[in-house]
């Protein structure tokens, strides 16, 4: 009898928590008037203006964020599985745990470097949102760097101790805790940015102080956090395991078929369960978005749900033959990620739009020389990336103990990449000399 009372209490408590979470950002302070917020946002936009069409910045921001978040997910997902794998006694789990730890280690590096671009483009067109929100939680924002450093070194410790599964597991747990913590910080900053009407109230605690210590987090949405970080991490790492099996499956003798099948099957299951959780929490997050943002009536919202469902369907089909379906699952994953990235951007547009802030009306100080530099560098980089990644791909498929000999075509590609890189440097320095001579001599 007493047990039933406790169970009911717990049920009601959980329902209450769920209710509060669903209400999400609609609670808290009443906020400033729309006219005041509008004036503030416009004043905050940098007077230098954007140096290029904001829509181009926006597209680049969405695409580069999609690239960045994939490796964030494989960092977290790789570690989550590594922890589980190191706990299991079976050799297949142990071996796959080591591989996923390696994946996490490289992914963190890539996540850091790929994270630069979306933030850069974002800060040009949404500077009021980003700087205001970051400054509300300034100390946490700086601690992001400290926690990331600690987390990454713990991952390296795990990597160096990978032959000792207990130690590797302990360090991996530390690593993932810190990664989830930095995810929490960046999530809070992004989420606070969506509520400009509350910034002043938050910062001044309703008009009685100035919270300049930066040790405050004002808003958090568990569904957004789970749907943009935790569940996709599991799903993406699952797809990566399928690709791992596909890549090493046929070429390398040291990868027995039984291990390959194990990795692929486990990957497809993780992708399926992670994907299901992703869809559920994505929908729950949509339900918490305030109605005046019109998220439920937006095509971008439903496209993101469709993108996720399409990906889930492919993975469902892939359960029968995960190795053969690995690349198709990757394509499905790419579609899901891009639609989610567009939905995430739509929320910013919708939130800022409530106050008449539109990036398409951002002051423009158009100039062509620096975009030329960027796109020229991008072309140079693509030639170099193509060569470097191709050689890495070939080396990875070469049996252990053998040296891969590049073909003539590959040597030509190599020569071309050296040529374009040197050409870039010569042009960059040459232009500098001309400008200096013109201005100062």
């Amino acid at each position, binding site marked *: 009898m007493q047990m039933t009372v406790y169970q009911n209490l717990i049920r009601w408590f959980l329902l209450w928590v769920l209710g509060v979470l669903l209400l999400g950002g609609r609670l808290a302070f009443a906020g400033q008037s729309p006219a005041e917020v509008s*004036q*503030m946002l416009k*004043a905050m936009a*940098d*007077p230098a203006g*954007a*140096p290029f069409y904001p829509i181009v*910045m926006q597209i680049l921001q969405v695409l580069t964020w999609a690239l960045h978040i994939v490796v964030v997910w494989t960092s977290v997902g790789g570690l989550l599985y590594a922890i589980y794998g190191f706990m299991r006694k079976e050799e297949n789990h142990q071996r796959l745990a080591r591989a996923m730890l390696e994946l996490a280690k490289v992914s963190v*590096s*890539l996540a850091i*470097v*790929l994270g*630069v671009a979306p*933030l850069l*483009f974002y800060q040009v067109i949404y500077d009021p949102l980003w*700087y205001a929100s*970051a*400054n509300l939680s*300034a100390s946490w*924002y*700086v601690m*992001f*760097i400290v926690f990331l*450093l600690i987390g990454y070194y713990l991952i390296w410790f795990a990597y160096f101790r990978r032959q000792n599964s207990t130690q590797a597991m302990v360090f991996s747990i530390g690593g993932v805790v810190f990664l989830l913590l930095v995810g929490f910080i960046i999530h809070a900053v992004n989420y606070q940015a969506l509520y400009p009407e509350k*910034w002043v109230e938050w910062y001044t605690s309703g*008009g009685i*102080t*100035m*919270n*300049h*210590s*930066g040790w405050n987090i004002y808003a958090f949405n568990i569904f957004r956090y789970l749907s943009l970080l935790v569940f996709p991490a599991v799903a993406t790492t699952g797809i990566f395991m399928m690709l791992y099996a596909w890549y090493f499956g046929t070429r390398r003798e040291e990868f027995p078929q039984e291990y390959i099948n194990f990795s692929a099957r486990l990957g497809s299951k993780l992708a399926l369960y992670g994907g299901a959780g992703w869809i559920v929490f994505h929908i729950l997050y949509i339900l918490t978005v305030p109605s005046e943002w019109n998220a439920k009536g937006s095509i971008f919202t439903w496209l993101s749900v469709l993108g996720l469902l399409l990906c889930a369907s492919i993975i469902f089909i892939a359960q029968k033959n995960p190795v053969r379906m690995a690349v198709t699952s990757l394509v499905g994953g790419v579609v899901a990620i891009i639609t989610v990235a567009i939905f995430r951007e739509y929320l910013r547009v919708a939130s800022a739009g409530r106050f008449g802030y539109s990036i398409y009306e951002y002051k423009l*100080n158009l*100039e062509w*020389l*620096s*975009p030329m530099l*960027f796109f020229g*560098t991008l072309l140079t*980089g693509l030639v*170099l*990336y193509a060569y*470097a990644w191709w*050689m890495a791909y070939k*080396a*990875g498929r070469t049996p252990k103990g053998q*040296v891969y000999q*590049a073909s003539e075509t590959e*040597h030509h590609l*190599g*020569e071309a*990449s*050296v040529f374009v*890189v040197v050409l870039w*440097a010569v042009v960059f320095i040459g*232009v*500098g000399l001309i*400008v*200096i001579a013109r*201005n100062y001599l």
Partner: protein
Amino acid sequence: MDVLGFYPMWYVPAIGSASVIAIIATIHVLASHTSVGASILLAYLATKAHRENLPQIYDYIKRYLLGLLVFSYVSGSITGPGIWFSASVANPRGISALIHNFVWVWAAEWIWFVAEVTLVYILYYTLGRIDMKSWLRLAWTFAIGSWATMYIIVGILSFMLSPGHEKWFVSGNILDAFYNKNYFPHLLMRSSYMFAIAGTVGIAIASLMKKDLPEKVYKDIVRTLSFWGIGGLVFGTMFFGWYVSTLPQRSLVMLSGIVPKWYYALIFIILLVLLSHFMLTAIRPTVARFYMAYPIYLLIFFMGIYPEEKIRETIRKPYVAGEFVWVNQIIAKDVPAKGIHSEVPKIQQAGFLASNPFVPEGLKKITPDNEIMAGKAIAILQCSGCHNVTSSSGLRPFGQKFAGMTDKETVYSFLASYLTPQNHPPYMPYFVGKDEELRALSAYIADMISKGGRVSAKIEVPRQSFEAHK
């Protein structure tokens, strides 16, 4: 009331937010200069190994690459965005000014960052697994790509100090801003010193492998690193002289009078230590020891880069970006080409507190009730970029600067005559705001000094002021 685009203020008592940036930046500079210098040194050593058929050098290269992965590509990679993150909260309007001018340039640098990070892993994992000709190509593109990141960031750093030329203010041409007067000396100075940094850690790594390498190969490696290190120091110091000759006048005033002399002493000593160490290892490579080289490498952090970063930050003042954004985030100069207008006249007219949307309404109109708190808010908003405004210790503290000044009229007379457009020192902005705000600031300072030079950083809006605006 029209507001200006100020952001919520982040106040770090004692060390100041600028020191947070400096600490992160120092780690980054050490890691990144090690990495860029090493990328060229390792490509050179790999070429030497290939040409002279000394495959043992590859073992050394592999170990060095692992060292880079663990230090430069963790600490360096994270503290790079770390500088950006800390600057975003310490001075959002300063970093915003830079990003809005240089976004594409930074994006181009990002292309090289991605190349750097992917290539260092590829080089590490493919050494001995692909033919050497292909590997060497990757190594040299890694070297040039790494160096390219320096080509780019130096232009932005130089612009932060000064656009170098009045022309940019009217042309708005990115080339005039980027390739400014001290671009090349700055680039060449860093490009030289980086070999001394990479050479020092290279010797530390070599000394750990002494037993694993044939003596000739070991000596060859240590000598090569030592010669490159000596060259880096000699050329770096030469280019430093050229760099100083391109600094704006206000920076030269600060270099000679404001920058603490012990910064110079530290830098001079570390240069001598490095030179002596390289000369010793060049003459007798066998005396190289890890316990000697690695501590010297760490000393570069404390005695070389940290003072250098602090000096660079100091001589930039009173600006943080392009001689138009002050360290307290007020836009102080017109940039006609960009349609940017000085905010000083607006603030003088409307009031400093009233212009800031994140100041509580109860402090915007100064009354006898809220005068001290309004003054504290002004101190935090307008002075804390360079001063600890609530204590007597730490960064240029008010408690020391105003020691003994317990009368608000005395403080007011001093500030009113000192912080004017005509009389302000070249490294400090003048006071911007209404006279009653300067009086409030003076009242706060006098109150703080009379309480022993130390007060809580908390701002509390008095109840009456809060109620009046509720």
